[in-house]
């Protein structure tokens, strides 16, 4: 069928079952936007291209499908960059389509020219500069394949405006064969046997569950393994959701900002089973000492992650669902009761300690309680809202499949340690890049991807102001996202770092001239409310979750509130 390059892009997107794209128009992408008018694909106009990239990411994380974002050349494309890098670090499949200046102008510093394939090479899984319109169908097919298979990641397709205008004979390829791209799916049987033997031999095993489990839809298999051997499970930040927070075998999040219990269990184990985690420095700091004390089984789809940051006893390359299923064939029922008892003891001690430290405040303010023990407690009349308390009861007001996204900073860690997550793909956060301004647009993407689910973003006053223009997107498309805004009038996480590492010399962390966020909500026609006491939290949460439409719940938080 004869059509323009731009029409071919749309046809290809339709062939890939894309229902929604997030984007922002401009001259170099205008043929695409023209062709879009005749398509059933829905377009969400964000208020900044970065919002489009984060929204595509949020969409991808809740649906498991690739998220698509579109921008014009030059500044449009460079605005996408943070979202592309963010998706790369968290292995999220997005397709970024950018317009480019006319082919014959490339390299001349033409108006709005930027070398986006060069710029994104370090943090995209792959990228393409399309030279001929005939290549479009194959390239788009490849891009979706690469983005969504193996270890997922962002793929950039840069398309000069003349290529969009050229007329081609469209045929969408059924098969593609990329010589240099053949991800390993099935694990090596010999290695899986070794892994099973190591699990049988271990006295103090622990499972460290990463985001790869959620990507591979293998949380169920992981739980089966944990339950069959009564193995304690700790998660990374990205692994939150792979096990329900109140599961008896769940011992919290590891790392710099994790719980004492999780770190204790990890570092006292004699076998660590790392599943779909890349052993990042924030998660497993002392990787080399860990490897000296314990045997390490590392299962990951990306061979380059195995042995990169930690010496591994039993490496297995493959898709976690396949590998765990094969492993479960070999693993026998059993337990290490004494070890589990020790771990549970540590948890009990730690959560009691933190409760005491919270000085009579409502329970649930415990990093180690992971949302246990909060329910039914009486809230006290306080001067501020305790964010840990709010988060520990938030799930009581939300259905199981509700999606929570977070910004970055203390708000993120409070949420990670205190919100009770019940299902995979319902806790969405920026892990590897730690991108402020991610939470709101990713919540928009999540709501578009799962319109039937309640979506709440946990925000900080700093991060919120990096993306608050996206309130406009929510208004335009009636995207019902609830915003819990922890206003501590500080860049809280950095403030705390300056306290602990720079002796309290505070530098540029004050946000004392914040706008009136409730009035801001009203300016967009949204409802909002400001509270500053724990006693008001339950009713406020009830009002927020019962209302229809976007909502800002601004919670005044003690500027000195610690992260942990």
């Amino acid at each position, binding site marked *: 069928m004869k059509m323009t390059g731009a029409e071919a892009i749309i046809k290809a997107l339709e062939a890939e079952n894309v229902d929604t794209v997030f984007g922002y128009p401009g001259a170099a992408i205008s043929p695409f936007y023209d062709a879009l008018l005749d398509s059933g694909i829905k377009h969400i106009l964000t208020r900044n291209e970065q919002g489009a990239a984060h929204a595509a990411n949020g969409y991808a994380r809740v649906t498991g499908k690739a998220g698509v974002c579109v921008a014009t050349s030059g500044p449009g494309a460079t605005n996408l960059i943070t979202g592309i890098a963010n998706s790369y670090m968290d292995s999220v499949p997005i397709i970024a389509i950018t317009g480019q200046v006319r082919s014959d102008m490339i390299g001349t510093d033409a108006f709005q020219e930027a070398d986006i*394939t060069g710029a994104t090479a370090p943090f995209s899984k792959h990228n393409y500069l399309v030279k001929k319109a005939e290549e479009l169908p194959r390239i788009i097919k490849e891009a979706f394949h690469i983005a969504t298979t193996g270890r997922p990641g962002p793929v950039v397709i840069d398309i000069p405006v003349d290529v969009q205008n050229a007329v081609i004979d469209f045929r969408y390829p059924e098969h593609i064969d990329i010589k*240099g791209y*053949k*991800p*390993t799916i099935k694990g*090596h049987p010999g290695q899986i046997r070794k892994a099973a033997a190591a699990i049988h031999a271990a006295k103090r095993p622990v499972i460290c569950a990463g985001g790869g489990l959620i990507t591979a839809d293998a949380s169920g298999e992981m739980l089966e393994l944990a339950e069959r051997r009564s193995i304690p499970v700790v998660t990374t930040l990205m692994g939150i959701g792979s096990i329900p927070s109140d599961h008896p075998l769940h011992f919290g999040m590891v790392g710099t900002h994790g719980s004492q219990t999780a770190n204790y269990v990890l570092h006292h184990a004699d076998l660590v089973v790392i599943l779909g985690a890349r052993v990042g420095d924030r998660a497993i700091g002392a990787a080399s000492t860990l490897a000296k004390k314990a045997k390490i089984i590392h299962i990951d789809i990306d061979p*380059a992650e195995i*042995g990169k940051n930690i010496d591994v006893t039993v*490496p297995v*390359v493959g898709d976690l669902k396949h590998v765990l299923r094969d492993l479960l064939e070999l693993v026998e029922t059993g337990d290490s009761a004494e070890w589990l008892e020790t771990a549970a003891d540590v948890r009990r001690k730690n959560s009691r300690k933190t409760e005491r430290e919270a000085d009579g405040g409502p329970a649930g303010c415990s990093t180690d309680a992971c949302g246990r023990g909060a329910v039914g407690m009486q809230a006290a009349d306080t001067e501020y809202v305790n964010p840990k308390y709010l988060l520990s009861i938030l799930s009581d007001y939300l259905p199981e499949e509700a999606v929570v996204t977070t910004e970055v900073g203390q708000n993120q860690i409070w949420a990670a340690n205190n919100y009770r997550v019940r299902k995979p793909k319902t806790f969405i956060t920026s892990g590897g890049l730690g991108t402020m301004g991610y939470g709101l647009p990713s919540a928009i993407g999540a709501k578009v991807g799962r319109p039937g689910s309640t979506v709440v973003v946990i925000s900080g006053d700093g991060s919120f102001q990096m993306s608050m223009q996206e309130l406009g997107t929510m208004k335009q498309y009636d995207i019902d996202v609830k915003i819990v805004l922890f206003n501590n009038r500080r860049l809280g996480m950095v403030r705390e770092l300056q306290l602990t590492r720079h002796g309290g010399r505070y530098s540029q962390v004050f946000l004392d001239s914040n706008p009136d966020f409730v009035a801001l909500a009203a300016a967009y026609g949204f409802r909002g409310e400001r509270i500053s006491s724990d006693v008001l939290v339950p009713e406020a949460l009830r009002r927020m979750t019962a209302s229809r439409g976007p909502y800002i719940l601004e919670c005044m938080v003690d500027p000195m509130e610690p992260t942990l």
Partner: protein
Amino acid sequence: MAKHILSVLVENHAGVLSRVAGLFSRRGFNIDSLAVGVTENPEVSRMTIVVDGDEHTVEQVSKQLNKLIDVIKIKRLDKHESISRELALIKVSANAATRSEIVQLVEIFRAKIVDVSKSTLTIEASGSEDKVTALEDLLKPFGIREVVRTGVIAIERGNRIIKVTNNEESDSNGKDVL
């Protein structure tokens, strides 16, 4: 630290070289030399990369290179099981008094004189990296004006070949770790 030779088959299109070079600088790997040219298959180029580093580094280099979609295959060449060559053009100062001594050296090294002027000789030398370096060292006292070296290229001995085959790919993906 030791030198390791990697033979890398890549897609023969624009941008691949910058992807490979970018990966090295980004991940802090040291390239000693990189030589690239097309192969018997016009769609495929072959890079010979000499890497300086310990075992862990070379394994990481291979795995990270493997992740580039444009990289089709990587093989580490065993020094003893392969032949490696480098070509150099060396322009050295020469006058009536030194010329014959230089010519002698060139003969011993089975190199060639490819250009002569009143005050210079230009020598074409090829061989192992060590041999080329040895000749360069011996020529230094005469006054080296300019040196151009291609970087090492290498091929395996005997009937072994490195080919683009589909089914072997997953094998090489996991090989270093299994």
